[in-house]
């Protein structure tokens, strides 16, 4: 039996979706994209061009839900399958788009640069429980107009894992798509083996900007998977009640599914999001709040009820350092996410309200991911019945250390953690340096960077990635890209 968490019953899910559909039909959704408004009108939406509002009726929503794929796969830069969304797997990816990095040397948050990003890719390449890389933070040593594509460029140049990313402008999509084409070769090959997921965010409440709505259209056109990141802010830009916020999340996400599916039926999507409560005391959006996590898990239940794979920004923390708060918020989030069966969990490494990545936290969080993945494998009998022969062996031999049963099941039954988790007795811990978690994590970051092997992408592909990125940099007034280490 796979252990699971349920927060909503079927009747409540049905009511939330019915209310969301009513909002889309009666109040509609603002779409600041004239061409898309016309497309929506062409597919039966009632469009008020003066207010840029599209009213999405039940038939249009039903058609979109019917054509959205129940499952899809993701592949790494070399074409190997890494994810099968919709098949019940829980995959983790680092939290993305931070504006700061927690400097492992100084313990201070600062603006990240190219060298930091390369170190990040090297670390995430070696972490076994993070199935993809995300464009985790924004290098500050390139112009902001190319900072989105530049992250993807570095990820594809140095890493092999698929990438969870996003475009900050309509224009940037073109290069980000071309970088993927450089890896795959053709549009058909890219559609067949998607390499990246793009986060596309509606604006609360019930609104799509021209940039994010066009990103949805462009991704659907090229068969690039999209995760919709609806961000209701409970008590501020959404009802304070969790159910009310879930209604808003469902309406915004359904509208994203409609935009995607009218562009190209069958375009791959994840029912994702990043809702949060609003802490009125500090005017902040805590991702580590239990109510935030409850909303994540609950909307994932709603997405699964529609047959769609899901995504959430969970398993992260609002702490400012790799401290106990970072561990407890990330650990609780990852556990709840795994028990909820969220298909793609975005969060590891992230601190400070999704604004700061930490390489040291990333290696710690990788262990949390491992523990939760073991948890959802549950407790299953494995050569345990009848029990008597094994106990006869135990009584006869006085231990089972080398029993065939032990040898067969030890490594699959027990998830042994890596070196950042301390399980030595105190004497051994002291003998090995008495290192704190932070010190062990720093040592592991250094080891992973040292152990990194260059991506096996062909040199020709890498040269093409560089050529395209340098061309884009020149268009934005940069003579040369920042220097890169090997």
């Amino acid at each position, binding site marked *: 039996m796979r252990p699971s968490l349920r927060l909503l019953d079927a009747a409540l899910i049905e009511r939330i979706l019915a209310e969301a559909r009513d909002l889309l039909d009666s109040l509609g959704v603002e779409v600041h994209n004239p061409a898309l408004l016309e497309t929506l009108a062409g597919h039966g939406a009632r469009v008020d061009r003066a207010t840029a509002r599209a009213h999405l009726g039940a038939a249009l929503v039903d058609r979109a839900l019917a054509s959205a794929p129940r499952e899809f796969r993701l592949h790494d830069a070399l074409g190997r399958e890494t994810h099968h969304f919709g098949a019940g797997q829980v995959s983790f990816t680092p939290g993305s788009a931070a504006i700061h990095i927690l400097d492992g040397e100084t313990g201070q948050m600062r603006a990240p640069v190219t060298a930091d990003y390369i170190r990040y890719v090297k670390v995430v390449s070696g972490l076994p429980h993070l199935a993809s890389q995300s464009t985790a933070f924004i290098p500050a040593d390139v112009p902001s107009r190319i900072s989105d594509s530049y992250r993807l460029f570095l990820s594809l140049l140095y890493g092999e894992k698929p990438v969870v990313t996003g475009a900050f402008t309509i224009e940037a999509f073109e290069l980000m798509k071309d970088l993927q084409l450089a890896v795959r070769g053709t549009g058909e090959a890219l559609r067949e083996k998607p390499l990246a997921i793009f986060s596309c965010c509606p604006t609360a409440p019930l609104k799509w900007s021209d940039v994010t709505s066009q990103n949805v259209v462009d991704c659907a056109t090229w068969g690039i998977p999209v995760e919709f990141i609806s961000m209701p802010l409970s008590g501020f830009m959404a009802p304070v009640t969790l159910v009310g916020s879930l209604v808003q999340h469902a309406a915004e996400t359904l509208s994203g599914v409609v935009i995607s599916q009218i562009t190209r039926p069958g375009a791959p999507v994840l029912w994702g999001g990043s809702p949060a409560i609003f802490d009125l005391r500090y005017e902040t959006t805590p991702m580590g709040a239990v109510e935030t996590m409850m909303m994540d898990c609950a909307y994932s239940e709603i997405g699964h009820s529609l047959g769609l794979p899901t995504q959430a920004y969970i398993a992260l923390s609002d702490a400012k350092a790799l401290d106990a708060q970072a561990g407890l918020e990330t650990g609780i989030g990852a556990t709840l996410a795994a028990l909820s069966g969220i298909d793609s969990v975005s969060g590891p490494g992230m601190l400070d309200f999704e604004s700061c990545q930490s390489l040291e936290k990333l290696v710690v969080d990788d262990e949390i991911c491992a523990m939760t993945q073991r948890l959802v494998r549950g407790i299953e009998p494995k050569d345990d019945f009848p029990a008597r022969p094994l106990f006869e062996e135990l009584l006869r031999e*006085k*231990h089972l*250390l*080398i029993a065939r049963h*032990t*040898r067969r099941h*030890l490594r699959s039954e027990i998830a*042994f953690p890596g*070196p950042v988790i301390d399980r*030595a*007795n105190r*004497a*051994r811990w002291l*003998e090995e340096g008495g290192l704190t978690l932070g010190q062990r994590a720093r040592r592991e970051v250094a080891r992973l960077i040292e152990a990194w092997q260059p991506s096996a992408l062909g040199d020709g592909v890498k040269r093409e990635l560089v050529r395209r990125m340098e061309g884009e940099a020149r268009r934005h007034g940069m003579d040369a890209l920042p220097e890169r280490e090997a």
Partner: protein
Amino acid sequence: MDILKEIAASLERGEDDRVAGLVRQALEERCAPLDILNRGLIAGMDVVGEQFRKREIFLPDVLIAARGMYAGLDLLKPLLAQEGVPSAGRIVLGSVRGDLHDIGKNLVAIMLKGAGFDVLDLGADVPAQRFVDAAQEHGATVIGLSALLTTTMPVMKEVVELVRARGLAGRVKVIVGGAPVSEAWAREIGADAHGYDAANAVERVRALVAAGA
């Protein structure tokens, strides 16, 4: 592959059931028994021990390899009669009087045997005098004492004092271990070493034997 390297590799891969067959094959190929022992069995176990120290493999892997080594060694023993079968050392081991806990002690015994030591396991609830008697009777150079209870730890001191009283200090070393036992306690009672876990106990015993040789 060289047959001796194959023996070592089999131990490293945990193919304990292949080792005896390979040793037979090596003998048929007229390899010297001492070469088979040193360049095959011991070379393989050295690699296994190193992997265990680096935590690349687990305790069962070491024990499986040790089982393979002994299967091979049984074939060599008659042929090594003249040179004698080398032993890492002889140790008397037990949980001290009043202490019926023996899981940790058993683990240490298994590990010591795997590392090539002759182990005389006296069991649990063993009085001080019996440890020292057994060491003298069997020519052991190390006594290993285990305790889980703080109330039974003083028996360890009794053993150390008895070793001194019989004039064995220096020739018979005492190592102590168990959950409440620390390096500081070992120093306080005058024991020669403290092992903080089974693997560490093997290293410490090896060092005691080497120092006493």
